[in-house]
């Protein structure tokens, strides 16, 4: 019966593991946010969340997805608040009754990055001219291709350039992945891509200030990247914690949190500029 006792032992261990698996969770106030990858990947939310908890006693949890999926999660009432960056889509979202009280929080800008050698020769050009050149020379251009805020912006830039939005061209690579993943793919393919400046600074920081891709086009007013918060409409979604969501909106638009955003730096560079009204 020696083997039998071994199995008995295992059952007891298994039972103990099962019993200890889900201890009752302390009923703290938890605010659930869906946000874009850039606010998470840069580490901004890691810097803001403890300050928010300290000020309000509310724990902030977030799931970092593309803006398209974040909006969908809000539409399905699965989160309380959204922090995204696709102004046109957000306005349509509010108009459709999915979100309320859209407030601008901060901005940075988009930049087009590429290899330091600049094989397509677009350095210093305007956005439209640079995109036209890239298309004309069939230089590799990496797109998020995931309906994220950045992807929506990129598509609007192609439209503004007067060229058709590329899709099946062999030089146009649609990754369907996050911003940093897409930058890495662009670096591997020695191509160009468009990113928000915050993520690019994070990328440069990771590479010790010597990134394989550098900024080639910047400064155009069309490249502004506005981030906003919206509360999921409590009239549609009875279960959302609108009181907590509203407190977050009030908190992040107020001077102390705005200062925290301005003070958030990597390699001495500011990633986001607060602009709440």
């Amino acid at each position, binding site marked *: 019966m020696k*083997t039998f006792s*071994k*199995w008995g032992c*295992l059952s007891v261990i*298994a039972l103990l*593991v*099962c019993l200890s*698996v*889900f201890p009752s969770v302390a009923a703290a106030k938890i605010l*659930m946010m869906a946000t874009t*990858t850039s606010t998470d*990947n840069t580490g901004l939310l*890691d810097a803001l969340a403890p300050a928010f908890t300290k000020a309000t006693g509310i724990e902030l*949890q*977030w*799931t*970092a*997805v593309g803006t398209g999926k974040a909006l969908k999660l809000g539409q*399905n*009432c*699965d989160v309380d608040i959204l922090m995204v960056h696709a102004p046109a889509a957000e306005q349509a979202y509010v108009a459709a009754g999915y979100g309320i009280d859209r407030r601008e929080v901060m901005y940075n800008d988009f930049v087009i990055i590429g290899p330091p050698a600049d094989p397509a020769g677009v350095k210093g050009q305007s956005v439209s001219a640079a995109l036209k050149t890239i298309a004309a020379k069939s230089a590799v251009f990496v797109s998020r291709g995931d309906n994220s805020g950045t992807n929506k912006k990129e598509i609007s830039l192609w439209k503004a350039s007067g060229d058709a939005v590329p899709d099946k061209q062999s030089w146009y690579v649609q990754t369907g*992945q*996050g911003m*940093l*993943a897409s*930058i*890495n793919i662009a*670096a*591997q393919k020695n191509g160009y891509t468009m990113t928000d400046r915050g993520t690019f600074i994070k*990328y440069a920081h*990771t*590479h*010790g200030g*010597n990134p*394989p891709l550098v900024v080639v086009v910047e400064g155009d007013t069309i490249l502004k990247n506005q981030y906003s918060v919206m509360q999921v409409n409590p009239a549609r*979604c009875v*279960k*959302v914690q609108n009181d907590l969501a509203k407190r977050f909106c009030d908190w992040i638009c107020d001077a102390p949190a705005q200062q925290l955003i301005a003070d958030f730096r990597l390699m001495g560079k500011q990633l986001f500029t607060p602009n709440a009204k």
Partner: protein
Amino acid sequence: MPPIECPVGCPVGQKGTVEFLLQGVIQAFRLLFSGDPETFSAVAATVKASSFSMAASLILGVPLGFALGHLRFPGRRQLRLAVDTMLALPTVFIGLMVYAFISRQGPFGEMGLLFTLPGIAIGQTLLALPIVIALSATAVEGMDAGLRTTLISLGAGRHRLLVSSLWEVRHGILAAALTAYGRVMTEVGISMMVGGNIKWHTRTITTAIALETGKGMFATGIALGLVLLLIAFAVTLPASFLRRK
């Protein structure tokens, strides 16, 4: 995960592969032995969700698999075919299905399971169940047919017959459990879709690997993969003792 210092650049293209892998191994030990809280949070999430789903899938799956392999009833072959087909369920698909049911708009939305470990565990149970059923059934089918005759001839009753048969297939069931455990531990789709990869809460080792890889932190990704292997080793080691006769 903590930032990795890459003074001369981390990506594969700039460093030799060996050096790159070595960096991962070194960091795996650093994460484990420096008691990195984010890593341990991910380890805890992985262990909790997988323990629950394994317990649930074994409790439900072993009797069902035993019945499927032992009993003879009309439609058994078709049922067997259905279970075998379910072995190919993609994890992202399971994740989407579970999401549809536990989203606040879904039929079980009231239970608040989305973005929780129990939510992940439900999806993983659906992933593991067909494996446990199919492999248990196979073990029972492969049981020495002579055993049954011998036992009956020795005057064994139905109860005794059942217990002896179960005892005989214990190694097959252990193999089923380990196979299912392997899939549950390593899946990403369910954890990502249902859990949301929320830091300190539903970030498992596999979603952390996906995140770190997406961020270009390849060495951290490799380190976390090695941590996952270490956990797998800790689980299979006792199982290998059970297998000794």
